[in-house]
């Protein structure tokens, strides 16, 4: 098996799908000749030609609209929005059009579009290059929403997204493109080659959308998280010595309620962690679901550890970022509660 970082794994997924399915087209700002600002499409235009891998104007609304039209005309578009922070000009096309086309035409028209977009903080990107807007999209009926936390999942989930008949918003936590990140910005960077999930098959494989993964088995508390925070949570668990079960949600819509709630019913405690802001964040949905399904098993109030409810502040990134210390405090808190 090959060693890949997340960028290479995403590139490999696109490579595999462009090679297998002539309907797949990949486009976005700077994705063609240059290969993307994060290099996720590097070399693909040379390999598949400029009719399959295209640069686009700087117009996110136009990119998604064009993807919808292409999807209606039988292609399988994979559109890149350069930063999740730039996705809002496309909001109407995603929410009012892409998500609801199948519904409003009773299945007569649909567009199997995948929207890839790098998200999350930890890169000194300030408020326009650090946001985690997944909760904005999980609230939209008709979209699938995915966020992988490692190269192996990124490739398998992206292949599933491209093969899916429904539109998928595929968030890529850019802080972990090159290596897992435990939340301590002062430590030297760790490459994916040190991580078992940096081993990625070269060919085609799919990880089903809608399946969470238990990344650490534990008895005392269930920690629900996704993206970069999976690794930060692992560090926090080490810090506390609490025997936590860490679940990588991976797919927010559809949500793998069974895996999540089976665990919480067993441990009786739950901590939810995400980078995104707290109020009406996806953690609120997780918390409500756990409450509905596991109430009689809960031994402590559910805790959320999230970004503060402010825009992402450039100078105070590490006071804002929900790092291991805050997660550790929440773990201790739910363990102490009676």
């Amino acid at each position, binding site marked *: 098996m090959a060693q890949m970082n997340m960028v290479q794994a995403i590139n490999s997924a696109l490579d595999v799908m462009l090679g297998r399915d002539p309907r797949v*087209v990949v486009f976005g700002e700077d994705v063609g000749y240059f290969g993307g600002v994060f290099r996720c499409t590097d070399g693909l235009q040379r390999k598949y030609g400029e*009719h*399959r891998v295209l640069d*686009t*104007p700087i*117009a996110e*609304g*136009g990119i998604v*609209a*064009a*993807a*919808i*039209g*292409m*999807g*209606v*005309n*039988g*292609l399988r*578009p994979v559109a890149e929005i350069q930063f999740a922070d730039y996705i809002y*000009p496309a909001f*109407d*096309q995603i929410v*009012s*059009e892409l998500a609801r*086309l*199948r*519904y*409003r*035409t*009773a*299945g*007569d*028209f*649909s567009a199997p579009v995948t929207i890839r977009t790098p998200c999350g903080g930890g890169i000194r990107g300030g408020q326009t290059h650090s946001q985690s807007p997944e909760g904005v999209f999980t609230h939209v*009926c*008709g979209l*699938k929403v995915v966020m992988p936390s490692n190269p192996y999942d990124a490739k398998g989930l992206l292949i599933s997204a491209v093969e*899916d*008949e*429904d539109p998928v918003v595929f968030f890529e936590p850019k802080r972990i493109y090159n290596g897992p990140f435990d939340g301590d910005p002062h430590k030297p960077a760790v490459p994916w080659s040190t991580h078992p999930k940096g081993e990625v098959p070269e060919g085609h494989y799919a990880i089903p959308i*809608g399946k969470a993964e238990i990344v650490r088995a534990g008895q005392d508390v269930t920690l629900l998280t996704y993206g970069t925070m999976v690794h930060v949570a692992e560090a926090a668990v080490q810090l506390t010595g609490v025997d936590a079960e860490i679940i990588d949600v991976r797919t927010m*819509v*559809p*949500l793998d*309620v069974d895996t999540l709630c089976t665990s919480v019913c067993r441990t009786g405690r739950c901590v939810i962690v995400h980078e995104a802001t707290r109020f009406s964040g996806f953690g609120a949905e997780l918390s409500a679901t756990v409450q509905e399904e596991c109430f009689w098993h809960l031994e402590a109030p559910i805790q959320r550890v999230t970004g503060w409810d402010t825009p992402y502040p450039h100078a105070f990134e590490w006071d804002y970022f929900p790092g291991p210390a805050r997660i550790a405090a929440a773990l201790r808190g739910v363990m102490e509660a009676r």
Partner: protein
Amino acid sequence: MTQSRLHVPHPPARPGEKPDFSYLEIPPAGREARPDTLASALQIEQLGTGMVRVLDEHGQAVGPWNPHLEPEELQVALRHMLLTRRFDERMQRMQRQGRISFYMKSTGEEAVAVAQAMALQPGDMLFPSYRTQGLFIARGKSLVDLMCQCLSNTRDMCRGRQMPIMYHWAEGNIFSISGNLATQFPQAVGWAMAAAIKGEDRIASSWIGEGASAEADFHHALTFAAVYQAPVILNVVNNQWAISSFQGFAGGERRTFAQRGPGYGIPGVRVDGNDFLAVHAVTRWAAERARARGGPTLIEHVTYRAAAHSTSDDPSRYRPKEEWQSWPLGDPITRLKEHLIGLGEWSEERHAALEKELEAHVTACWKEAVTYGTLSEGPTLDPVSMFEDVFHDMPAHLKRQREELRRLLAEQHAAAAAQVPAAEG
């Protein structure tokens, strides 16, 4: 010292004032040259300021844009336009009687949709707006199907999920109408890009009103169409009014809408939208250009929204009542009819007979449509079907919600059944 002052556009006439269309420069029919279909956008910039017109004031077809259509084809066109108008009138009445919730007429604009549908190939993909029902009629969609959509009944193509008039027709290559304006414009460009990627000879065409041209989607559509030279026709139907906002609020005071095309490197052609022959000719020119790798064309159809914006609108509150009678480009149906009479291919008697025939047809279609149910009378759609088609395969959370609704409906049904004997007793 000079002080800046905000310019707030005003229409030339408000209620109680004399209609005034002097802002509209209307050249005589036949004046504009018909350039080569592959002429560069800048070479033919005058087509965006002039107006392609074929039918003159005597109903004669004149000039280089005359498409020289067979009389039989013109008779078919007249039938489609008249049927569109009769259909609109019936549906408006049905809304007033409370049989449907909402309607939008296309009165005065019938030539735009009918001529374009007839000038394009059946395989060309149409991305309509909400006042282009003539596209469906000219392509042969049955009125019963359109009526069933408006009724949200058991034969509704949208299965009760959309307001009236939000039709679509996959087999007829007509895309779904969206209430979010202008979204279809860049989607049509994406469709056309895909046709070019696949190397097909099919092209796309889309319609928006001049009001919706202010949306960013308009800019996206023209930018993408120009950048990729997509085989697409982008139509701005300038019917002068966007609900109560006259075309000046979309930027029409200083430039024509067609003139925006050359700014993007796209030919902009302004056409008399009430002249069936001119619309047909311009559309065919643009379609030939698109198929010959000449790229997109922006067409501005100058027309007038004779009816209210919708059944929820009262235009007497914001424009003179008699404005439509003063509209200098006339009525598209009357103009085509007079042209055909002038050719000796039509008569008042035949016209009256056709009107009668179409009226009877609309009546028969309505009678059939209501047998499939109305909003208030059965048969009705099963409410639990609302959970279908959100996704290709229904995920667990929707299955759970569907079961919940099913239980609720069963309880309501049981409660209603239990009440009947009590009431009788």
